[in-house]
């Protein structure tokens, strides 16, 4: 036995290695190269938000009581004293007012959930628009979409635990959606809720799902996801020295690892700051849930606000099939998301079929070089934005004293027209941009032979000019220095903060 190291940590590592034989694996991990580009950060932000969610979630779980037993509130928050409520809701109010740091961790947990899903969404956009889902990464695309679906469910479960007026209303709607599924719907709803609405012991089931089942699934999927990232190594944008068969960037050890751990603390700092200073989900103002009461101006979190919008845009029809009924809410709340997610899942295969390109790709597309894909993605986002708008239109309708009818009808039209307009616009813009580039800057795989106005005069100056162009590109995009890091997090944080302030402002005015 030879000693290669004298530090205690080194000796411990050696001791372990001699029993598990991980030296080779460890070395290649330490040498792993990360490409530098800000858009690669979204996935990491999602990962670190999840860590924050688990940390704050464990704290909350130690105080939360998943019980529907009725109590009369006698705690420290005056306005609710004497009000009948469930133990669940009471425990959340206590957590917010009587447990030191309870409110901080509750609000941080909620903000972390919002940023977690936001980061997942941006990450998905990055992967989509750059074609990073192409062979050999189709499996990881599927893992990623599944992660997003499970995360949405997890967010809904958490939000519904509180048993306040808003979340209780959401659960009522969820029951009617479960029930609307043809053939099995009623069974499904009875199984999930333990009987006809409001069911029996739903909160304790939801608690198990929220703090154990789905987090375990998410953690497992994250493991698979990272493994599938590391196997073929990261993708990268084209650039000098960057080829299909290599990766250029920072090594994990020591620079990237240190930077990334730093990023974790920065993410945690921003979430914690939001949790402390931006009020979110003040359930004590909404009051306890009561099946006979509903409040207007209720706002879902953004990751299910779009479903609320879809429910609203649907015209008032349902489908009668002899003695059976396909319920109205089935179409916007089950069929539509079903189709959207099916398309998302199948996208890599659909695209490969359409383009006939089944080869491996490790160099990323620039969105402009794939006008059609970029246009379709932008169109989908436009539709999504219209749904978000519809999901919160009651708030601005009451604020500006408009009538809901014309607003809703405009939204119905927009839902179909806006995606088409945005798609066409983006398609044209992408094509123009792509054509204006020197041909060898384009990432489109089959080197296009189309002559373009900006074609560099064949010959000498080409290489040097190109190197300069690359340089500029690097400076603009390629630098994931602390500035970009902080900038990216702060931008996400600021956007969410401003959005929520505006939303709250609108809500306050409308009351």
């Amino acid at each position, binding site marked *: 036995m030879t000693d290669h190291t004298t530090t205690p940590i080194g000796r411990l590592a050696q001791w372990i290695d001699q029993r598990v034989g991980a030296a080779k694996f460890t070395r290649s991990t330490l040498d792993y190269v990360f490409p530098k580009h800000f858009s690669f950060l979204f996935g990491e932000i999602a990962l670190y938000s999840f860590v924050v969610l688990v940390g704050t979630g464990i704290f909350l779980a130690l105080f939360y009581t998943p019980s529907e037993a009725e109590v009369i509130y006698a705690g420290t928050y005056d306005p609710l004293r004497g009000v009948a409520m469930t133990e669940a809701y009471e425990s959340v109010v206590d957590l917010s007012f009587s447990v030191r740091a309870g409110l901080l961790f509750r609000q941080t947990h909620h903000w972390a959930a919002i940023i977690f899903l936001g980061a997942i969404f941006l990450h998905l956009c990055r992967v989509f628009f750059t074609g990073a889902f192409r062979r050999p990464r189709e499996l990881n695309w599927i893992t990623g979409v599944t992660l997003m679906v499970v995360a949405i469910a997890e967010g809904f479960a958490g939000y519904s635990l509180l048993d306040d007026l808003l979340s209780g209303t959401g659960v009522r709607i969820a029951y009617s959606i479960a029930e609307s599924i043809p053939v099995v719907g009623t069974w499904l709803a009875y*199984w999930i809720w333990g009987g006809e609405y409001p069911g029996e012991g739903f909160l304790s089931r939801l608690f198990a799902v929220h703090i154990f089942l789905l987090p375990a699934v998410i953690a497992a999927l994250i493991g698979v996801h990272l493994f599938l990232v590391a196997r073929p190594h990261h993708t990268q944008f084209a650039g000098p020295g960057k080829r299909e068969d290599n990766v250029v960037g920072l090594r994990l050890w020591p620079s990237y690892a240190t930077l990334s751990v730093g990023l974790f603390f920065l993410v945690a700092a921003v979430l914690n700051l939001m949790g402390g200073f931006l009020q979110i989900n003040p359930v004590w103002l909404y009051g306890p849930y009561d099946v006979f009461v509903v409040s207007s101006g209720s706002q879902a979190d953004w990751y299910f606000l779009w479903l609320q919008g879809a429910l609203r845009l649907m015209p008032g029809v349902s489908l009668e099939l002899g003695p059976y009924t396909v319920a109205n809410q089935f179409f916007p709340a089950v069929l539509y998301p079903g189709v959207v997610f099916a398309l998302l899942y199948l996208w890599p295969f659909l695209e490969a079929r359409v383009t006939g390109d089944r080869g491996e790709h490790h160099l990323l597309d620039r969105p402009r070089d794939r006008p059609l894909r970029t246009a379709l993605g932008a169109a989908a986002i436009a539709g999504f934005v219209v749904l978000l708008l519809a999901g919160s239109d009651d708030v601005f309708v009451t604020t500006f004293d408009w009538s809901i009818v014309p607003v809703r009808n405009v939204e119905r039209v927009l839902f179909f027209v806006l995606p088409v307009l945005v798609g066409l616009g983006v398609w044209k813009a992408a094509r123009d941009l792509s054509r204006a580039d020197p041909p060898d800057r384009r990432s489109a795989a089959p080197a296009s032979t189309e002559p373009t106005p900006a074609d560099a005069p064949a010959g000498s100056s080409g290489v040097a000019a190109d190197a300069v162009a690359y340089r500029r590109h690097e400076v603009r995009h390629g630098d994931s220095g602390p500035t970009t890091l902080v900038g990216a997090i702060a931008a996400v944080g600021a956007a969410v903060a401003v959005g929520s302030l505006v939303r709250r402002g609108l809500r306050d005015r409308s009351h």
Partner: protein
Amino acid sequence: MRVALAFLVSMAASVGFIGAYQLDAGTQWLALSLSIALGSLGAGLAWWSRRLMPQESSEEARPTLAPPPEEERETAETFEAGRRGIRRRGLLGGLLAAAVGALGLGTVWPARSLGPPPSSGFRQTGWREGVHLIDETGRRIGIDTLDFGGVVTVFPEGRDPAADDQVVLMRIPLEDLDLPEGRANWTPDGYVAFSKVCTHAGCPVGLYQDVGYLLLCPCHQATFDVVQGAVPVFGPAPRELPQLPLRADRDGLLLAAGDFSGPVGPDRWRLGEVKDGDA
């Protein structure tokens, strides 16, 4: 230097956090100190990485994932060779699959305990002929409870109100009513009652506008025209709110004169059965 300072600030802020906790200084102080502790640790690490660690680009070869054909063939052959060595693989393999399947079915079977089998068909509410209307506090509703234009949520007397029991009771001048045929004597002294459970997704239809007699559901803004029999005039609700026939007894108290005019609550697959059961 910068890095060292960041770590020192972080340390101080952590101590500050403990202090804020001990003094019960409130959410903002806790958040501020903890964010500084986390943030300067993060910034310190990022600076350390950027300033004092190698920054030059490294290159690494990308591993090929698809195995060379001969390796693939050899793997397949190894598997095949082993498989050929198994005797009786057809019969026993089939039985094994069946046994594992049966065991799987058996172990998920108790999932049935999750909920009772759905009660078939008609969904029973607490309303039937002769049941008194009571308000939230348990008081019976009489002919003089509401003025014209008034509204109140009522429940069937004699049981703990279930979600589907809630009814919205309004009083409207008889000459304004334009109810569907056959409902003429469901409205003693202008009292009209409809299920308060939205036929869209089940929210309580909580907003009443007595100008124009509209009921509005705040969830997705389904709007019902009360005088026409609460038919949906806007929004996603596919059906009218079922009406509860009313009558008044000799003491001037309001009672249900029968069950609802249609199925209560959102559409569902077996809504047809409900309608039949109702007929």
